[in-house]
């Protein structure tokens, strides 16, 4: 079914975005803690400098693909989460400017200002992305015209009157923050040397416990909050492959990092992120945005999709286009591979 194909393709693009931009967001979160001197901070920035913009393109291309394949979902979610998305925009803008402008002037004041902005915006973005995923799992008060609007917060309870932020989405936000901090940490360990690497190792091994605890927390609470999850995993037990992948990644990144296999630890962290995202996507399927008021009003893979002719046409340009994009990414990562040197 073409709609399910596009659901999988969009999910893949979002997963690639989270893995790639995730490490530079994570690097932004951890650099304030692990990089103390200006040369160390430059080292962190150099490790993401040539690639961060390309990583963020996955968000734009993924957003464009979502718009084209599931216009009703794009329209509903973007207007419904209006305030949160505008904040995402401001943070993306501030963060991009901070990365690009920091090195234009050699002045400690100028640089520490942009460092703080880079760290702060990265942290808030991670939390907002996690909370967004939490909202999708929890469901939103969709009307039968397919629209809704959520205030930023109400009583912090994930019931029918929930806002964008409730305790559950706050928990998923914190989990995303910790997971991306760890992910960025493994990237920094892999790309750098010296004191910076040592501090990153220590930070990574501490933050792992937080990731593990929050992972358990969101897994348990998600099954409480969204009954569709129970149903999906009971009816299609093969879907347990996704949580198993996430668990394997979580354990793998700990063990591999302790053994000093830095690239493998980073890849295990990527596997963990992919496993968590696909677990959630599988769990809410066939919904793409469930309703927490009336299940029948939820947006599904079929009722949110564009007409079929366009979806088939889309495959004809999307597949060659993404092969090209993957080649560029491969080329640029190979070109800038290895440790960053001062």
């Amino acid at each position: 079914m073409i709609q399910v194909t596009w659901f999988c393709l969009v999910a893949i693009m979002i997963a690639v975005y989270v893995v790639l931009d995730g490490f530079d967001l994570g690097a932004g979160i951890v650099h304030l803690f692990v990089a103390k001197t200006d040369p160390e901070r430059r080292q962190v920035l150099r490790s993401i400098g040539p690639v961060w913009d390309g990583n963020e393109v996955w968000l734009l291309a993924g957003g464009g693909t979502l718009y084209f394949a599931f216009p009703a979902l794009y329209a509903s979610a973007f207007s419904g989460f209006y305030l949160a998305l505008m904040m995402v925009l401001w943070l993306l803008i501030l963060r991009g400017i901070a990365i690009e402008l920091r090195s234009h002037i050699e002045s400690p004041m100028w640089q520490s200002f942009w460092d703080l902005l880079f760290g702060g915006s990265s942290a808030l973005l991670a939390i907002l992305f996690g909370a967004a995923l939490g909202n999708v799992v929890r469901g939103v008060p969709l009307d039968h015209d397919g629209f809704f609007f959520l205030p930023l917060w109400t009583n912090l309870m994930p019931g029918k009157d929930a806002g964008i932020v409730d305790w559950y989405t706050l928990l998923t936000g914190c989990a995303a923050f910790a997971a991306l901090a760890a992910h960025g940490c493994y990237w920094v360990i892999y790309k750098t040397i010296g004191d910076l690497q040592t501090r990153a190792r220590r930070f990574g091994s501490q933050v792992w416990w937080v990731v593990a605890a929050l992972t358990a927390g969101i897994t348990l609470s998600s099954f409480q909050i969204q009954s569709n999850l129970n149903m999906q995993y009971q009816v299609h037990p093969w879907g347990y492959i996704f949580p198993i992948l996430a668990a394997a990644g979580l354990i793998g990144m700990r063990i591999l990092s302790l053994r000093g296999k830095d690239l493998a630890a980073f890849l295990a962290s990527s596997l963990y992120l992919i496993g968590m995202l696909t677990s959630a996507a599988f769990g809410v399927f066939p919904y793409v945005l469930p309703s927490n008021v009336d299940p029948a009003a939820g947006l599904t893979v079929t009722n949110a999709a564009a007409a079929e002719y366009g979806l088939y046409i889309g495959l004809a340009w999307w597949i060659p286009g993404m092969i090209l994009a993957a080649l560029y990414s491969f080329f640029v990562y190979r070109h800038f591979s290895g440790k960053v040197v001062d």
Partner: protein
Amino acid sequence: MDSALAVHRLHFAFTVTYHYIFPQLTMGLALLIVILKTIALRTGDERYNDAARFWAKIFAINFAMGVVTGIPMEFQFGTNWARFSKAVGGVLGQTLAMEGVFSFFLESTFLGLFVYGEKRLSPRMHWLSAFLVFAGSWMSGFFIIATDAWMQHPTGYKLGSDGTVQLDSFWGLLLNPWTFWQYLHNMTGAVVTASIVMSSIGAYYLLSGKFNEYARIFVRTGVIAGTLACLIMLFPTGDQQGAMVTRHQPVTLSAMEGLFDSTEGAPIALVGQPDTDKMTLDNPILVPKMLSFLTYRRWGAEVKGLKDFPRDQWPDNIPLLYYSYHIMVGLGTMLILLMLLCSYSLWRSTLYDARGLLWALMLALPFPYIATTAGWMTAELGRQPWLIYGLMRTADGDSSRVSAANGLFTLIGFMGLYLLFGILFLFLVHREIEHGPHTEVVPVQGVAQ
């Protein structure tokens, strides 16, 4: 300003107008940088590489601003124009997603290599990365113009039973005749902006006696490219763009020209103020029969006036549309004259010492920006009251659930943020200009340095 629709319109108008300050320079500059790199590669003249490296710095700052102010545009289709997006996403999503898939990956990859990789790459590979940045940005321009052209003149679609607009012909969407002329007109406009910026900075250096060698390259390259581009703006691209409006949006043509009564041998108004209540053009300075000739190539042809169109088809802000159009045409004409004078002086080998002309060239810097902005305002105000011409009214496309208060909250946020960025941008560009072009091979200031 208390209606949600007005807020959503202003939200998009403000963010897109601000955004387009940057791409119009980078798209044009990408071409000029490829030209400089090509001359350097062919002749082995290192000054052209230095010149390219200097402009790459200006390019990088503008590109970063263009990227960060561009992201809100894609988001706003969903956040502020949800009913529109839900209805047409299956059609317009094609071009918008193609921009992401084909242009953004290409641009971001090779901009990194171009800006950070000069030391590591061979001269040919460095030229190639400059060329691919150019190709990516011009492709990006194409997909955005194709999107706007579809809203101006929808093609290749059919109406679904559920009220959505569906794709019926992929090539009908991509090969929209409106796209062709609008794309050429717009991209040539970007070359005008970049050429005038380049020659203007060159003129500033010559007048202040700095970086003379490079200044001459800037003035020469800018004036030659600018003259060609300015002429192409007028003919055939501007002329044909006008023909598209005449054929498909006749009421827009009358509003742009401030023509209220249908007239045979209609005059063109150079100056005047359209009064939509009394339906007159006040204080007009007219060139007789000119409008008929320009529109239909016949001096006596009849041009329909606004009074002969139903009022609910009129663009909803005729004075602003009229002024935007006249500012575009007026500034465009002045720039053509300036460029022709400079070209003549360049040909006579007197330009580098012609202080009067150099002053004019230097001070011309803001005008291409104003002209392009006015041109876009003409296109988008002229499309009103339609969001998709003849298919969906603007009033039916905004996000019904996002209140005026929430919209205004974020609009004010954007205004504050963009004000700060504007100051920062000017400060950084000013530093680069004062620093000037140099000979040493250093990668552009940036993260990888």
